[in-house]
């Protein structure tokens, strides 16, 4: 096996090539293509265990928390004395919100998947091979967006629908008020939750690309999605709070992931647009950074 790569040479080319030949005989290679880069990213995602783990964990969190909240809300499980009443349950936003209680924690898990999609490449150094194979760089980010969306969204749609039906079943078993998928705003809230979780994964990808470190990107994601909505109440002057806080990603998302409209919150459409901006703008910044910086 001392030499080498001849199998792709033309059949007529003998082993005794002359060194005066400017190039050895090589098979025609195909150019880098968008479809090829997407396939490459799909292979990367499916070939590491952490992808499946985080994906299943997110679905698991949704189902488990939904089932627990429904069981508590329906009285099947004992309610802590100071918790909300039987028909409110945790969250107090009605039967749909009750069973989607997992969406408080699930964004963290799925966000980590989004972050790892790119930061694992920086951590292991494979980013250099990746960008050598695709020197244009942007197709890589684009392909990661496509693959992440194509994998996360269907799984989340299935998970939120399953959570909804299981939760309603449990609520109904305890004679608590239930919601039907056909009730106004319910389907939007359920599918909206799936879209929200997918969006958080993409936000994680953008933050990971910008910060190039798993720890930094996960911290930034936690701050943005989980901490700021609460901390903002302490840190911001009261006159700003309403305007600023409702525009944070998780609050903007709650306008389309819940059935009942909270006074002062954005409209479902407005919230969707604001949340979309939280995904698209960081991704655009990530694209610029990826293009400009050394790898």
């Amino acid at each position, binding site marked *: *096996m*001392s*030499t*080498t*790569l*001849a*199998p*792709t040479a033309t059949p007529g080319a003998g082993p005794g*090539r*002359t*060194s*005066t*030949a*400017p*190039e*050895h005989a*090589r*098979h025609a*290679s*195909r*150019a*880098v*293509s968008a479809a*090829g*880069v997407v*396939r*490459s*990213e799909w*292979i*990367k995602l499916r*070939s*590491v*265990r*952490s992808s499946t783990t985080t994906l299943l964990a997110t679905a698991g969190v949704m189902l488990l928390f939904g089932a627990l909240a429904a069981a508590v809300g329906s009285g099947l499980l004992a309610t802590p004395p100071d918790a909300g009443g039987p028909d409110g349950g945790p969250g107090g936003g009605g039967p749909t919100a009750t069973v989607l209680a997992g969406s408080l924690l699930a964004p963290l898990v799925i966000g980590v998947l989004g972050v790892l999609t790119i930061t*694992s*490449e920086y951590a*292991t*150094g*494979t980013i*250099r*091979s*990746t*960008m*050598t*194979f*695709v*020197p*244009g760089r942007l197709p890589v980010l684009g392909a990661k967006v496509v693959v992440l969306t194509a994998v996360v969204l269907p799984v989340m749609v299935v998970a939120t629908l399953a959570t909804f039906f299981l939760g309603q079943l449990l609520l109904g078993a305890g004679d608590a008020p239930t919601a039907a998928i056909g009730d106004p705003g319910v389907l939007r809230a359920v599918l909206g939750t799936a879209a929200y979780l997918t969006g958080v994964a993409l936000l994680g990808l953008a933050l990971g690309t910008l910060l190039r470190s798993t720890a930094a990107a996960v911290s930034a994601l936690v701050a943005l999605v989980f901490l700021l909505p609460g901390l903002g109440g302490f840190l911001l002057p009261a006159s700003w709070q309403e305007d600023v806080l409702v525009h944070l990603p998780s609050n903007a998302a709650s306008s389309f992931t819940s059935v009942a409209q909270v006074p002062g919150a954005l409209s479902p459409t407005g919230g969707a647009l604001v949340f979309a901006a939280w995904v698209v703008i960081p991704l655009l910044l990530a694209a610029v950074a990826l293009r400009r910086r*050394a*790898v």
Partner: protein
Amino acid sequence: MIELHGLTKRYGDKTVVDDLTFTVEPGVVTGFLGPNGAGKSTTMRMLVGLEAPDAGRATVNGRPYTEHAAPVHEIGVLLDAGARHPGRSARDHLLALAATHRIPASRVDEVIDVVGLTEVAGQRSGGFSLGMGQRLGIAGALLGDPAAVVLDEPVNGLDPEGIRWIRDLLRGLADEGRTVFVSSHLMSEMALTAEHLVVVGRGRLVADTSVADLVARSATSVRVRSPRAHELRSLLAQRDVVVTTGADGALEVTGLRMEEIGDRAAGAGLAVHELTLQQASLEEAYLELTADAVEYHGSTTRTPTTPAPERTAA
């Protein structure tokens, strides 16, 4: 063919790659030699577009790497042997890279076979040794059946068997008419593998020479042993001749041919017990070259040219 024209990279005040101009020809193994920190890796990174030069350009077959439609068909590169996801198998690692250029899976299995990883290709690569990592990196470099192969320190971490394997592989690639550009900080390794050498020190080009030329022009001295060394020493003293006395009393003469030393000793009737031509090793030639590079970099009085072929007395 790889061509560099005035390639320059600065990090803040520090010029890491300083106006590098040279050509790497196909069909031979070209060694890229320099001490650690001489700018070799940065040069290679600029070659494949991972880093943008501050000035100058690098081209592969006439165009910058990043402008080729199928870049890995032009240059296959190994920059970091540790670059792999520990949870991903070697085969999946290569399949993902191959997919970008729609390189078939059969080609992936082919390069796995070339580097000798067939038996472990399906395992998670986290348990790979440094040497297996190098082999995986080389497999990645060969995937695109490239016209040029650029490898950064490929022998690091390889056992003697692996080093010999790399040597044969590189020569085989060059014999197939490919451009082979290999960096190392070890002259001894390059002396065995490369036919041509590009030597850099502190980011500057120090020498662009064939290995044979470097040997020929490296400094030579003559070792002379005589019972009347002191008299012989004054006999040889003249401009441009340096005579030093070794620990055993033997003289080391630079600047005079061996024949002339013998003739002068005979003319003066001085007995000579030993007269040996001492050829500097490649290693010494290399150290001398890079020492000069460091020296002129720190001084403003000397012009930065490649060192003169003959050594002259200070």
